């Protein structure tokens, strides 16, 4: 194993991560009745919209304070106030997240003060305005996502009466994964508050009416009761404590935290069900056991093929970790594991997934696609699992990509990619196996003919 963490180079060539405010905006979209106002240049919000629109295939409205040169010099307060006025007038939101950018952070804009003054002047009582600080030079969209959730919880959390529900805190997953999580909890009969809930807001069904702010999302009343919940299950296994929303609820309000890996893979999903069972003592319903049985069956059917797969896995830490776990439990040992983000526990966690023995793997944190491409080639990866950035692996090295994560901008249905739970794992496992088989069956005749017949085979044999 080569747990080499840092690539000694300055330039980032073909990015594996996106910027911090984007993560915050995605988190905000999981709050009911919410709008995001990005405090910065017009371009920031437009780029975020473009990125989200291409991935979710949904209209995504994000406002901007549209600062120009003058406000950059003299301060952006007036524009932010005007932006808030206009968003309230057009969208009637219940919650507004004001998200900073690298520019407004560098300018030193005090958004908490600006918001306080604004609210005092306007005397609004029905809209909550939450400041979220996301200077993009301090992290990636992953840190932005956790920061926003923590700030949102902090905004609403007050000492609350004990409450029988369980907090479920998700990392950045697809609306389909969010729906699957809710279905599992409901089939177990577990009462829960789930944050953030993008199941409808970023994947709304076609219907007769169009709302500017999509229906769905976590209700603010529910968020304010999270501090009194029985426990928090957070799928932030690699999330640093300083950013962890679950850790905040535990430290400030004593809500016990179970910080688990994203339930992709048999072991991770078992751990989640076991945890639910130990907290609530609810029995596991037959329907879930059936799904588990089908997954186990699929693992048996796939294992010989999976043993031939040498994956490169890249993307956000939570997803990468759990997909790594899925591959390893199926006998496929990833040769490159990479993330554009950094995390204090990531490499330790990944290393612990591998059994004793000599398994060649390159671990890369805070990395880019130049490194991922180079290492994939060097380590002989034959399949990639991750977002659309991996398309260069296909174009340049004929390595197929199983698309999961964010962003998926060159295929439809990014919002509906299912990976969690027993069923989601099964579908992901079979996608991985079949992507490998498609490549193998496309090339094996030619390869074997070339190796055994043409190069050193029968046509050259002495008679």
């Amino acid at each position, binding site marked *: 194993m080569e747990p080499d963490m840092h690539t000694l180079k300055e330039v980032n060539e*073909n990015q594996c991560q996106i*910027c911090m405010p984007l993560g915050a905006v995605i988190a905000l979209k999981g709050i009911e009745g919410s709008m995001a106002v990005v405090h*910065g240049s017009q371009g920031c919000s437009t780029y975020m919209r473009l990125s989200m629109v291409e991935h979710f295939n949904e209209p995504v409205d994000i406002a901007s304070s549209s600062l120009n040169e003058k406000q950059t010099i003299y301060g952006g307060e007036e524009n932010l106030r005007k932006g808030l*006025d206009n968003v309230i007038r057009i969208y009637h939101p219940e919650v507004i997240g004001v998200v900073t950018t690298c520019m407004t952070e560098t300018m030193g804009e005090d958004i908490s003060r600006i918001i306080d003054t604004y609210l005092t002047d306007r005397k609004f009582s029905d809209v909550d305005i939450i400041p979220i600080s996301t200077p*993009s*030079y301090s992290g990636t969209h992953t840190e932005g996502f956790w920061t926003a959730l923590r700030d949102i919880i902090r905004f609403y959390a007050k000492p609350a009466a004990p409450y029988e529900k369980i907090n479920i805190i998700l990392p950045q997953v697809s609306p389909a994964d969010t729906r699957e999580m809710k279905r599992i909890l409901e089939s177990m009969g577990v009462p829960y508050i789930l944050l953030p809930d993008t199941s409808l807001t970023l994947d709304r069904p076609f219907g007769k009416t169009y709302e500017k702010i999509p229906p769905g999302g976590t209700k603010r009343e529910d968020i304010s009761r999270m501090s009194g919940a029985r426990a928090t299950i957070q799928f932030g296994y690699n999330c640093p404590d300083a950013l962890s929303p679950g850790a905040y609820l535990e430290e400030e309000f004593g809500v016990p935290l179970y910080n688990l890996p994203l339930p992709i893979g048999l072991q991770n999903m078992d751990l989640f069900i076991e945890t639910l069972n130990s907290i609530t003592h609810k029995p596991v319903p037959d329907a879930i056991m059936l799904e588990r049985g089908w997954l186990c069956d699929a693992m048996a059917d796939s294992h010989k093929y999976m043993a031939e797969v040498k994956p490169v896995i890249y993307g956000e830490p939570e997803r990468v970790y759990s997909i790594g776990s899925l591959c390893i439990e199926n006998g496929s040992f990833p040769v490159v594991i990479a993330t554009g983000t950094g995390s204090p526990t990531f490499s330790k966690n990944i290393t612990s997934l591998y059994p004793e023995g000599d398994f060649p793997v390159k671990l890369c944190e805070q990395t880019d696609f130049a490194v991922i491409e180079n290492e994939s080639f060097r380590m002989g990866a034959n399949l990639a699992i991750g977002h659309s950035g991996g398309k260069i692996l296909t174009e340049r090295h004929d390595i197929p990509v199983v698309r999961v994560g964010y962003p998926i901008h060159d295929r439809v249905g990014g919002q509906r990619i299912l990976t969690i739970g027993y069923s989601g794992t099964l579908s992901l496992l079979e996608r991985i196996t079949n992507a490998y088989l498609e490549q193998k069956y496309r090339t094996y005749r030619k390869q074997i003919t070339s190796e055994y017949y043409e190069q050193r085979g029968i046509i050259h044999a002495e008679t």
Partner: protein
Amino acid sequence: MEITCSQVSGGVLSPGLDERQNSIITTGISKNRIHCADDSVAGAVSQRACVFCGARVVLNPITDAAHLIHGPVGCASYTWDIRGSLSSGSEMYRNSFSTDLKERDVIFGGEKKLALCIDEIVEKYHPPAIFVYATCVVGIIGDDIIAVCKERSQKHRIDIIPVESSGFISGNKIVGYQAAGNALMRLITPKEGEVISKTKKINFLGEYNLGGEKWLIERYLKELGIEINVACTGDSTVHALKQIPGGFLNLVQCTGSMHYIARLLEETYGTPYIDVNFFGAYNTSESLRRIAQFYGDPSMIERAENLIERETARIKPAIEYYRSKLAGKRAAIYVGGAFKALAIIRQLKELDMEIVFCGTQTGKPEDYDEIHGMLKPGSVIADDTNPAEIERFLIEKKVDIMAGGVKERVLAHKLGVGFVDHNHDRKQCLAGFDGAITFAHEVYTTACSPVWNHIRKTPSWEASNGT
């Protein structure tokens, strides 16, 4: 088959913002000229982007240059390989380099890191040029990118060109096009003692070779007997761009992005320019005639007429077929530049369609006057519009299909309106006579798709329940 937008809005359709009222006019009713090119209204959810975005899209297709974005990682990440520009050679331009500034760099300055990044790119790839784009933060902390580029350029003996594109300078991409123009002028200015001699070739400005469009037009021009010197910037190389001063004539296609540089080239090198537009059969024919007329060679004019006659006859049956399917359908257009809007209006009119809504991000007053003149009374024209307004007009005007970019596409689909992509990441050739058929086909496949009827139909059980 009657297909119109059947959606209703969930709430009351937004009356819109007061600040926006002068930027929306109805033809035949509004007395005033449209208000445009202002800064976007804060909180209005403009579809516009920023200076950096404008500069990046203009320069990105230069195939063998490295594009280095100086700032935190986001701006590079959002613009990695975002254009559908094709290359006949190097694929260098499809990479996105970032100096990936961190907190430390923002505090202590990013110049040192920029210099190191340039060194690394040179060492790894030896590109003939590197474009260094300034982003917002760099503008605020005051990194002197001009000095760094100059110093590194001398060290490595290649062109390292600063692009002054800090996003906050303006939300209007036009300003970014100017930043790109200035960078291009810096690149092509002959070095001391260097002489670029004049040729009879043309420079094709504002042609980005999306879906191979430059190559198709090049075929037509070849038939006329004209060679393209270089396109700006589709399928261009650094070396080819440096031959721009030797051009006989500059064709300006994307006027929004290239009039600025065409004027600079006229002032500096005395090269005249004419406007052309190769979108749609009519525009293509007119442009070919204008070019031939400029050269003034009777045999060239004859060759142009022959080509136009032949190609027009060739595409006629297909266009007539699509016209029979599309006549009377109602269209909306929202695109970046006016040149594209005008071309789409003309093409939709050739298909006997009615344009009921049209807007652009960066149109100028004279552009809007021209658009105004092409639309029937009662149509809506809007500058720098937003999703709330688009939603309102798609519903109010009972639009069948919309032409625009990605952000408009998802909204149209949500409202059950057909959509035609005419954005810069498109994958097909929409120019010339071939493109005229492709465009009509694109409109047809969305306007006449069976999906709209299926997805709008109320299921029988709901219909019988009266819900």
